[in-house]
């Protein structure tokens, strides 16, 4: 077991290094000279010299990479071109905001998904099952940024009960656990929750049907165990898969929140990325993507480890 965990962690290291290389390469993918891409328009010669030294563009690529990753590991992701502030001070709060949104969305998706999935699994083949299946296919097919707009039309434009934009009063960019902030969270969280809800509903339905077919479940029934006690067994068997899917969806939402954040002007990483792209603020772009993808790798690893701890059948060592 320990060996497996260790191997899994070691296996992630080269992936993480590869991911950082791709992030590093991004800035060199940009059309034109990478230096001109990071130099703000009308920069003074001192700024150009400072940037040249900071990026070390005169050095060979591998050395540039090692310098860059060495600084990044220490938390130095460079300076934003637009705001002239350290990238980390821009990305940090944004990651927190995105995390709040993603956690809220996954929690909602988990609630809906598990409820619908169990209902469908227990009534496989019935009308309820068909309805749930239709809902879950819609959930994974719907463009969630469009769903966001639909929610705005319904709840902000027509009913006027929920705010359509931002995170709190007067465009505040810090989340507080109060009613105003929560009201701002509702619509974007719902818009983002449909994908995890659809996927979780589907998988829970499948697992429930699978477990109910098992011989031991029949034995439990035969020995007179009441339905709710059998249900505990179903939940135990479904839990590792559902938890894994939740983790992976949380990771996907962290990276995929850009569209919903843009619709709702939620001041998270997606919003930051969007601004960075259109102002050609490459250091911010690179920093945000590096941080998000590292989160993604880390969450994937944790999900894997957690799953192998929870479910002894997965011990593939």
């Amino acid at each position, binding site marked *: 077991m320990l060996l497996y965990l260790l191997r899994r962690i070691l296996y992630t290291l*080269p*992936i*993480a290094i*590869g*991911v950082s*290389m*791709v992030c590093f390469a*991004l*800035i060199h*993918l*940009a*059309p034109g000279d990478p230096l001109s891409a990071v130099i703000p328009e009308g920069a003074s010669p001192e700024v150009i010299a400072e940037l040249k030294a900071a990026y070390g563009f005169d050095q060979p690529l591998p050395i540039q990479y090692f310098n860059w990753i060495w600084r990044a590991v220490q938390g130095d992701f460079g300076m934003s071109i637009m705001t002239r502030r350290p990238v980390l001070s821009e990305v940090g709060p944004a990651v927190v905001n995105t995390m709040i949104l993603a956690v809220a969305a996954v929690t909602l998706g988990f609630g809906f998904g598990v409820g619908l999935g169990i209902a469908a699994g227990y009534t496989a083949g019935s009308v309820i099952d068909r309805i749930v299946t239709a809902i879950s*296919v*819609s959930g*994974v*097919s*719907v*463009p969630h*940024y*469009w*769903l966001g*707009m*639909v929610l*705005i*039309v319904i709840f902000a*434009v*027509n009913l006027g009960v929920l705010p359509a934009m931002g995170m709190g009063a007067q465009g505040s960019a810090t989340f507080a656990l109060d009613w105003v902030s929560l009201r701002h969270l509702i619509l974007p969280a719902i818009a983002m929750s449909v994908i995890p809800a659809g996927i979780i509903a589907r998988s829970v339905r499948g697992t429930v049907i699978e477990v109910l077919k098992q011989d031991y479940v029949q034995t439990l029934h035969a020995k007179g165990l009441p339905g709710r006690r059998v249900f505990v067994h179903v939940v135990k068997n479904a839990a590792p898969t559902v938890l894994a899917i939740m983790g992976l969806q949380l*990771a*996907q939402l*962290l*990276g*995929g929140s*850009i*569209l919903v954040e*843009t*619709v709702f002007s939620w001041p998270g990483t997606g919003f930051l*990325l*969007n601004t*960075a*792209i*259109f102002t050609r603020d*490459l250091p911010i*772009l690179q920093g945000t*993507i590096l941080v*998000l*993808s590292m989160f*993604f*790798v880390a969450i*994937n690893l944790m999900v894997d480890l957690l799953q192998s701890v929870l479910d002894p059948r997965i011990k593939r060592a």
Partner: protein
Amino acid sequence: MVATTGGPIASDAPAKGRRPVSRSFWATAWRRLSQDKVALVCGSILLIILLAAIFAPLITPYDPYRTSMAGRLLPIGDARHWLGTDELGRDLLTRLIYGGRMSLFMGFAPVVLATLIGGFLGIVAGYCGGAINMLIMRVTDVFYAFPSVLLAVAISGVLGAGLVNSLVSLTLVFTPPIARVAESVTTQIRNQDYVEAARATGASGWRIVFGHVLSNVTGPILIYASSMISVAIVIASGLSFLGLGVSPPNAEWGLMLNTLRQSIYVAPMNAILPGVMIFVTSMSMNLISDSLRASMDVKV
């Protein structure tokens, strides 16, 4: 979509029909699929959208680019503009039909490219094994280690807006998962006894790949790729929604959604209309993919 995947399946049937009783895998799959009502309905919807997009100039009464300052944001149900007009007074129905061209292309093209590239890489990795497998699959893993939307946005964002750049970024997003499927199926097949037997009787590597591996890999890859199309349509439209896809005044559903978003308080129904097209297309593709999976009885 049914019609296009149906082509090779249907034409395979007579060739394999030499055996009197048993039906070939493809013929069985096609038979099941053609009896699947959901698949037929969804296929028809997609076919209508596709045909409408192809023959757009013949069936649309308006020019998709002609603006009219007087007729801006006319409501849905207008006598002359059935689905209303957009923020520049262009006929929405016309633009939705034209928009299908770019949106469908951006849904299918990256997946087709990714299937060819990923399928090739996966088969090579699976068949060769060893160091080549390591090299290909570890590089694939790195790209797989990005959230898909983030990777598409990152590459499109760095390369700049545009059709070709979106195509490149989306292809890069969909290649790794397809390569993984191809690799795992190929590795399984390669170790089968009958492949070992073929090798023992002196069959060349090419013959094994084309005779045994390819025929086994095609089904799973096809199913996987078909499930990717729905994702591709949503992400591709998402890129144009962010302003990273085709540029105005082109008609594309995501882009239309983006420009109409400014008018969401004035004409909310018009503003959400392009999204309905994205939703219907992506949903139909998803259901077809499910039916395809059921008809081929493959677990991916």
